């Protein structure tokens, strides 16, 4: 599948944003976070900026961005529509709670705490909807499997956790439980990614050139002549393929930049507070960001579509 930059940015940025927002909401509801107003302002601000920038970027690849509102109408059948609706709905409880927790710290309201929890649930549902846009496509074997929805949720939580840990380190706070959870989640994400790649390398689509043409009973099917000499939309969009040697290199970048190095840096930062720990944490955030971006690029580039079999691909 063609890796469109706008969609890759959308899923990584808003994925991280929702993860961070979820942690902020739960952290505030359960009193695990510092209540310093500027710290919260920056953290919530970052989460909302990441989410909004991602959502905005996702409209850039549309042929008619001005009609994007129409995408909110078909939530009964379409995961993309559900994602759009949930993204907007989520802004309400999360926005209200953020205002309450930042500007009305002296007052306590059980209702507002409840709204905070509702917001946290909304964050999870929105990320799940994003994942299901991909996981519901039976045509793409690399996407329509159980690894995908879990992976989106896990990576969203992990990036959020790395972000909050980095923030706390930079502000000089004791990272507490977050400092421990970050490396643990990175390790979990690494395990998930390796398992996903093993699944990808060992399995393939139920469809084949034989079933695509229905000519399997006559023998092995291969393309003799394509319908046209130049690449068409289908080949550009769905026929994107990446050389195996590149994909191996990129996988290593994901493992080390995305998970391995941030794990080491954050584990180090656990025992090394102060300036050096802060620098390690910032480096971890940057590396994890790069790694997740490459991870998402590969998620598209390595995915094969059944259509490619009509243009000479041996499997999907």
């Amino acid at each position, binding site marked *: 599948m063609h890796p469109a930059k706008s969609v890759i940015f959308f899923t990584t940025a808003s994925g991280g944003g929702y993860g961070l927002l979820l942690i902020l909401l739960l952290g505030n509801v359960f009193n695990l976070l510092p209540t310093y107003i500027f710290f919260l302002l920056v953290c919530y601000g970052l989460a909302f900026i990441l989410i909004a920038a991602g959502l905005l970027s996702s409209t850039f690849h549309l*042929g008619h961005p001005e009609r994007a509102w*129409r995408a909110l109408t*078909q939530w009964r059948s379409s995961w*993309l529509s559900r994602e759009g609706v949930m993204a907007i709905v989520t802004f309400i409880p999360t926005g209200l709670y953020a205002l309450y927790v930042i500007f009305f710290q002296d007052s306590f309201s059980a209702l507002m705490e409840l709204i905070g929890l509702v917001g946290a649930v909304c964050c999870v549902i929105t990320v799940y909807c994003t994942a299901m846009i991909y996981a519901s*496509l*039976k045509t793409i074997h690399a996407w329509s499997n159980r690894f995908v929805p879990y992976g989106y949720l896990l990576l969203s939580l992990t990036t959020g956790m790395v972000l909050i840990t980095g923030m706390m380190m930079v502000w000089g706070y004791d990272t507490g439980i977050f400092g421990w959870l970050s490396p643990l989640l990175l390790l979990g994400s690494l395990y998930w990614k390796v398992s996903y790649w093993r699944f990808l390398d060992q399995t393939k689509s139920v469809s084949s050139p034989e079933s695509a043409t229905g000519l399997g009973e006559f023998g092995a099917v291969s393309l003799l002549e394509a319908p046209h000499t130049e690449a*068409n939309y289908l080949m550009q969009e769905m026929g994107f393929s990446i050389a195996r040697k590149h994909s191996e290199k990129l996988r290593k970048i994901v493992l080390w930049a995305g998970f391995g190095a941030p794990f080491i840096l954050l584990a180090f930062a656990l025992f090394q507070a102060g300036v050096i720990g802060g620098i390690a944490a910032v480096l971890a955030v940057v590396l994890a960001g790069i790694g997740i971006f490459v991870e998402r690029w590969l998620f598209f580039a390595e995915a094969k579509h059944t*259509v490619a079999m009509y243009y000479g691909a041996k499997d999907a």
Partner: protein
Amino acid sequence: MTSLPTNSPTKKLGLVIDLDICVGCHACAVNCKEWNTSGHSAPLTDQDPYGADPSGVWFNRIHSFEVENEKTGGRTVNFPKSCLHCEDAPCVTVCPTGASYKREEDGIVLVNADHCIGCKLCSWACPYGAREYDEDAGVMKKCTLCVDKIYNPNLPEESRVPACVSTCPVGARSFGDLGDPNSDVSKLVESRGGYDLMPEQECKPTNKYLPPRPKKQGSPENDTMALTPMADSSAGVISRWVDKFLSA
């Protein structure tokens, strides 16, 4: 509304494509482009049409496959492919705007170009590659089964079939109601063992494909005939005349 019709259409208009007859001349694809570039989803735009890297929107594409078999030898199969107007069309249910829809009256799958936002998700959901994005218009386009031709009262009755069907010089394409077991197309599918493409994708395509017939095995007698040497030019005039006379 992008949910599929609640009552599955009883009328299922579609095509039956005979892979035994198709000669791969691409006439159906050309006439499809010709009709549809001024039809329901007009125009079917092209990019760089006279340049080095031309591309454009077509609703019908003719692939050619080679089928290899050690016992029966290889064979070439020309393979026209257009929208199969699936009963469980995933391109319809994934559409976030309701632009992609399946008609309740005859099962034709269409795109409302005024509502399409051009997100391309429907083309990802289709296993067959039936949808092509129009870069110029910013919307998705696809085979309409010539909805503007098959119901057109201004055309003579025999012309009210899709452009690809009316133009096929060898009669490899048939059009009709595949929901009616007594229709000509349904009988054709029944008698020739018509099949679905990628049934495992569970889209229940309406269009059916008829398999190529088994090759005629050459009989030993025929083989000898083919190998009998004719008198060549070195033979005398009479010998050649006798050979010609007896061979006739």
